[in-house]
């Protein structure tokens, strides 16, 4: 089993969609929300995913394909 931390950022049109619920149902991953901030027009959720490595990978691909932005929780590693 593997664990992965991630930050999901939802665009306005997806805020009301049960993306995280669906993720847990369509794929063999357990989701565990740690922090979240959801507004009318934007929202983010920081969570931990647990499951087989490939299953997490497939799940995250699906979440991305839904239009959700995924970032690592370690913050943005990108600096010049």
């Amino acid at each position, binding site marked *: 089993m593997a664990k992965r*931390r991630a*930050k999901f*950022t939802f665009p306005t049109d997806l805020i009301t969609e049960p993306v995280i619920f669906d993720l847990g149902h369509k794929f063999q991953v357990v989701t565990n929300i*740690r*922090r979240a*901030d959801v*507004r009318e027009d*934007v929202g*983010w959720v*920081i969570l*931990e995913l647990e499951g087989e490595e490939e299953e997490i990978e497939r799940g995250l691909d699906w979440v991305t394909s839904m239009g959700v*932005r*995924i*970032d*690592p*929780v*370690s*913050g*943005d*590693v*990108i*600096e*010049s």
Partner: protein
Amino acid sequence: MSYVKGLFCKECGREYPAEPLNVCDFCFGPLEVTYDYDAISSVVSRERIENGPRSMWRYHDFLPAEAENAIDINAGYTPLIKANNLARSLGLDELYLKNDAVNPSFSFKDRVVAVASTKAREFGFDTLACASTGNLAGSVAAHAARAGMRAFVFIPADLERGKILGAAVYGPTLVAVDGSYDDVNRLCSELSDSYNWAFVNINMRPYYAEGSKSLGFEVAEQLGWRAPDNCIVPGASGSLFTKIWKGLNEFSSAGLIGDVNTRMFICQAEGCAPIVTAHKAGDFAIRPVKPNTIAKSLAIGNPADGYFALRVLEATGGSGCAVPEEEVAEGIKDLAEMEGIFTEPAGGVVVASLKRLARSGQIKPWETTVAFITGNGYKTQEVVEDTVRPVLIKPTFAAFEEALSVRP
């Protein structure tokens, strides 16, 4: 010796020992270093600092690493110059430029990497790593070379030539990733779980970030032990911005300078301005963006310290400035032509912002203003290629005079 007590979570306050950690186990919030400030106050003094080395390590009492064992390429102690020409053109009386473009690897990143690499060696790591768009890669590679450590630096494959070369020359393993900055970011975050390396801006981040405080310390000392009225600072993740502010306040709390009434201004280019946009909206929620800017060193779409930068803006009465893309190269040229300093787009963003802030009256002529120039123009020559218009002549007197009459 260092006065570190440990780490604490900036979100929930939980405490952790001073280890290579950057995220709270409980809420996944970012961690920050805590110090024994009473002990620091009892030892520091202006004289002690003035007698210290001519580098950022003169402030070692406030840094989370052991100065005696520092990996030292002489980062910091860069010039603070009074910019009379630029000041005059903007109607300002007291404008200073903090020229951090002249650090050993030519950006302010040497300050953060000095601390992160020293700490990494203290922790027993033998490998330094980072994901970068160039400046950080160069600094990590240089520090690793100095320390005899291994270095893996990850960059997007399509980076500016000067930044790639400026990292490669130090001999790291340079990994050019076929993808965007975001892809490099995600990859490194994943790798850091499996490889026992010191990723300076991932598992070393709490220590790394503290290095930027030295910019605040230095400016205060160079101004004759006082805080400026205004700081004009470029922002990507927002870390540098918050740490300059923290540095000024630590100096004040320790009694080295008086009260800090500095207003902090953060500058971004319009093509990637998530922090400024949130501030203008009067909001503390950052909306991540897909960067599309000439200022590649500031191209972070989801700034890790964005929220904390917004807090500093609010606390200091400062503001954000997002400048149109076409003003960035103009800012670079203004600085070069008026003050003889050649900066990269991050500095162009600062100069362009400064112009706007002065003209709109947000900074006043009689105030002491410091603009932070954090990177060197020689790494991003592409951006001002159009300035190269030599007068081409045959080597004769006549040819010269003829050419001159054509081009006055």
